């Protein structure tokens, strides 16, 4: 996994609450873009960016919808999304993270996230940041001005800083922070603990003889 340390980039405001994973990565029949994707491209990590927000981003002729924020300069260059509460709710599809990563987004800031989406972000070097809704609203107001749309996310210092120069601290579990900073291969790391896992399992099953598989 690619390491994440600091990121200074345009942030796009998407204040609607409950932006769900169907919005972020529409199902096969849910947009013209999704319908037109070749069978082997739909659902693949490599092509996920093409389908990002496609029902909102493109019309029935697959032409960009000018009103959609990620189609407008400077937000078409956004690497950060400032979102409404419960961002990424809905399904577990990791394609939702692949999709935003596929269009260059490396961090999402919101008051709360869908739990599965939140975890999936860390597996793909995308940093989800929880801030109080009041601070998210300050950021939304600020980045809505194209002249003030650049934010800096610093994972080492655990701060988000905008045009107002105010460093807003955020919390992230130490394990996930280290994993992102170091670009950890999680399966390889856990595989080093297999002896311990198997010992745990033997003791666990000895007490539960009804678990035969």
């Amino acid at each position: 996994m690619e390491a994440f340390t600091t990121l200074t980039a345009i942030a796009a405001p998407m204040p609607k609450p409950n932006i769900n994973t169907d919005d972020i990565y529409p199902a096969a029949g849910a947009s013209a873009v999704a319908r037109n994707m070749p069978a082997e491209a739909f659902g693949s990590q490599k092509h996920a960016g093409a389908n990002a927000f496609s029902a909102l981003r493109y019309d029935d002729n697959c032409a960009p919808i000018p009103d959609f924020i990620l189609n407008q300069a400077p937000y078409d260059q956004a690497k950060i999304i400032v979102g409404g509460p419960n961002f990424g709710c809905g399904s577990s599809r990791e394609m939702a993270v692949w999709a935003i990563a596929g269009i260059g987004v490396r961090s999402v800031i919101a008051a709360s996230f869908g739990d599965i989406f939140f975890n999936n972000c860390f597996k793909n070097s995308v940093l989800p940041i929880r801030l109080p809704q009041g601070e998210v609203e300050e950021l939304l107001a600020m980045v809505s001005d194209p002249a003030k749309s650049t934010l800096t996310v610093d994972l080492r210092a655990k701060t988000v800083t905008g045009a107002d120069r105010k460093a807003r601290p955020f919390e992230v579990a130490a394990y996930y922070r280290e994993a992102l900073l170091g670009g950890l291969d999680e399966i390889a790391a856990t595989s080093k603990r297999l002896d311990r896992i198997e010992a745990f399992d033997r003791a666990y099953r000895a007490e539960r003889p009804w678990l035969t598989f």
Partner: protein
Amino acid sequence: MTAHPQTLYEKIWNAHVVEQLGDDVFLLATDRQLMYEGGIHSFAMLRQGGHKVLRPSSTLAMLDHSVPTKDRHALPEATILRLEGLRRGTKECGIPYLDIDDPRHGIVHVVGPEQGFTLPGLVIACADSHTSTHGAFGALAFGVGASETAHILATQTLIQRPSRTMRVELRGRPHSAVFGKDLALAVLRAIGAAGGVGHAIEFTGEAIAALSMEGRMTLCNMAVEMGARSGLIAPDETTYAWLKGRPMSPTGDAWERAVAYWRTLPSDPGALYAKSVTVEADELAPMVTWGTSPDEVVEITGVVPDPTEAPDAGARAAWRRSLEYIGLTPGTRMADVSVDRVFIGSCTNSRLEDLRAAAGVLRGRRIAARVRAMAVPGSAQVKAQAEAEGLDRIFLDAGFEWRQAGCSMCFGSANDSVAPGERCASTSNRNFENRQGQGSRTHLVSPASAAAAAVAGRFADVRDLV
């Protein structure tokens, strides 16, 4: 023995902690996994990293999301790709796989319980958010991503933060035409689509004690719509009676030992929850969603709400957007809203009891001329049982299509979709924009309410029909 009273969630969590990896992050052992064709991405990750599957027998795989529910002799290219990917991956790794001609195949969240693969006290994961369904048995079950699935297959563990605990108590006994689905929608109305974020919700109370296993599965299925990764219900006699004799359930002495253990799982008296909510179930009417978020719910006797009465500016804007998309105006009585399509199916509501409830409304009736309706059993076994009872005849005689098992129109899968602008009374779990097909307008209801809507050609109070 225990230092302090524990909740059901805490008991299962604590029994599965292999190691603490840092502040609030744990290596958690998983017991069993369900897989469907979404798993092909995880197989690719394992191949890429050169990892082996640690315990293949702990996973059960089948095709559900993209399997057509009719005309299976001519599978679409996308289905063939996924089907072959799943066949290949499961074969390479030695994972048990139920193919689409296997009499046990169906939707993972229907088949897991049906086969007795799902048991109380287990940690169960699947790369699908509705894995919360299995919590109905007192298991800790949750959706995971493709990367997490690969991690589980390679190590039988998952890196997790514990959820906070939340209790939702459903007081009183609901009307006989108010089902698990209506309870789920009533809870959503009470706590909102983000009400359970970061929490595992345990459903308790008289209405839960009286609820069937099928109703419990429907309710836990929709815990994820409440923002919670997991929903749980303590196992009880209803649970044990339902599981006993299932093909993969323990037998004989092992069964007795298992039940003795399961009896220790319910939350201890005095156990503390981070959050508690009470919903009065006894006066609830059948529920229906009016918008594009599953918490945008009214009683069937209610009207489309007015955004000017929304609690805050954010909700006001969201309600306006929902109404614009769904094509309804404030003040309209839900019972005056006509429907074009009716879908009875999905991992939320496709079990035998669901089909019986709908058939009970449809018996001797015809669906309205304007309506196209379909019933899609959740598994081949549900389909066979329903046919043995003659339910298929009731659906067909009423004018429904009767399909084979699969996820179908829950998300516009395998060409089962709602056309742009069409309105669908659906027993599925999500009324999101474009969910059932581009421009589809989805209203979530129980199977009985869906049947009532099919007959009336508009939303109707099923209490008047039973």
